[in-house]
């Protein structure tokens, strides 16, 4: 039998999305700077850039789904690409968060005289780690357990059960984000209240942002699972979402221990 191609690779078609994504990113950064400084039209350029970026993300990922699920270009060797890509992306995210932990530790281990030589800084009333943060601590890992349940369901070919498990994962994620939102709403300090507020909201804020991205990723996986896109032989998108989710999970544990707990007493 002669196959449709004599190699296992995916030779991609020319695509406008790399350049449209680049232009969107350029408009977003330039527009963002203009918006935050006294320039006219900054908000307009920023919005245009964000719309461009979101549109590019949608159509680019739509094309990847067409090429993989509907056209069968993602052979075993092709699947290695997005796998390594996801892992390296998560490694870069680890470094991103490492910097925030460094900043927080730098300022808290030897508190400067400007903040009273103590941590939390003089005059800052912190959140009690044993209230909402402690309640959130089992919620996010439970969501991580639920995504593992979904993974086992996919590997066992139990398609419906995988959808239920993903729904459970996403619901726990939403509960976590809801609690974080409540906590932010009633926090007694803001991002501009000393180095404590800055490091606290930078680290937990970026974590929350990543939780929201991970939740969207999992929702997409749930929809694709419902549509029958994911098989037990081929579910790279789901695996990437699960890795990402575990990463977000681990970051929370470090946030709880070092920023909420250690940094709050």
């Amino acid at each position, binding site marked *: 039998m*002669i*196959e*449709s*191609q*004599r*190699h*296992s690779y995916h030779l991609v078609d020319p695509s406008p999305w790399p350049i449209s994504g680049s232009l969107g990113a350029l408009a977003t950064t330039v527009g963002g700077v203009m918006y935050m400084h006294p320039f006219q039209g900054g908000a307009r350029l920023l919005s245009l850039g964000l719309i461009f970026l979101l549109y590019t993300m949608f159509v680019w990922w739509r094309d990847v789904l067409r090429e993989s699920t*509907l*056209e*069968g*270009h*993602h*052979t*075993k060797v092709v699947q290695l690409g997005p796998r390594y890509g996801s892992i390296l992306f998560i490694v870069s995210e680890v470094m991103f968060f490492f910097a925030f932990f460094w900043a927080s530790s730098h300022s808290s281990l030897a508190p400067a005289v400007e903040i009273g030589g103590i941590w939390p800084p003089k005059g800052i009333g912190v959140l009690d780690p044993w209230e909402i943060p402690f309640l959130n601590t089992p919620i996010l890992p439970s969501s991580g357990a639920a995504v593992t349940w979904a993974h086992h369901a996919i590997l066992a070919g139990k398609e419906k059960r995988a959808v239920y498990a993903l729904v459970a994962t996403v619901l726990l994620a939403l509960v976590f984000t809801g609690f974080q939102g409540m906590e932010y709403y009633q926090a007694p300090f803001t991002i501009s209240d000393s180095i404590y507020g800055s490091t606290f909201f930078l680290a937990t804020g970026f974590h929350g942002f990543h939780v929201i991205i991970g939740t969207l990723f999992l929702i997409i996986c749930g929809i694709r699972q419902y549509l*029958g896109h994911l*098989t*037990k*032989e*081929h579910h790279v998108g789901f695996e990437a979402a699960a890795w990402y989710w575990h990463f977000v999970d681990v970051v929370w544990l470090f946030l709880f221990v070092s920023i909420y707990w250690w940094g709050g007493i």
Partner: protein
Amino acid sequence: MPIATGHEKEELEAELEGRRLLDIDFPEGPFGTKEAPAIVKSYYDKRIVGCPGGEGEDEHDVVWFWLEKGKSFECPVCTQYFELEVVGPGGPPDGHGDEDDHH
């Protein structure tokens, strides 16, 4: 058979039949001699082959050559013997008339 389409499906089908799709891509085996030449599979009547010599000390820089159907080839460096086995439709590999067809 799991749900799949296109080349991914061909790959999975081949796997279920216990063969690797690109099996012919990595020919290996014992050193080819005149009596028992190294067999290289090909979809067409000729294929570019590289001889790396024998194991360890006997390895040499790769010698590339056209291996043609019905003609054995002896490596000028290590005297390894090669023969082509056509496993596909045969004919010229470039999909259109080969200069060899005209004489």
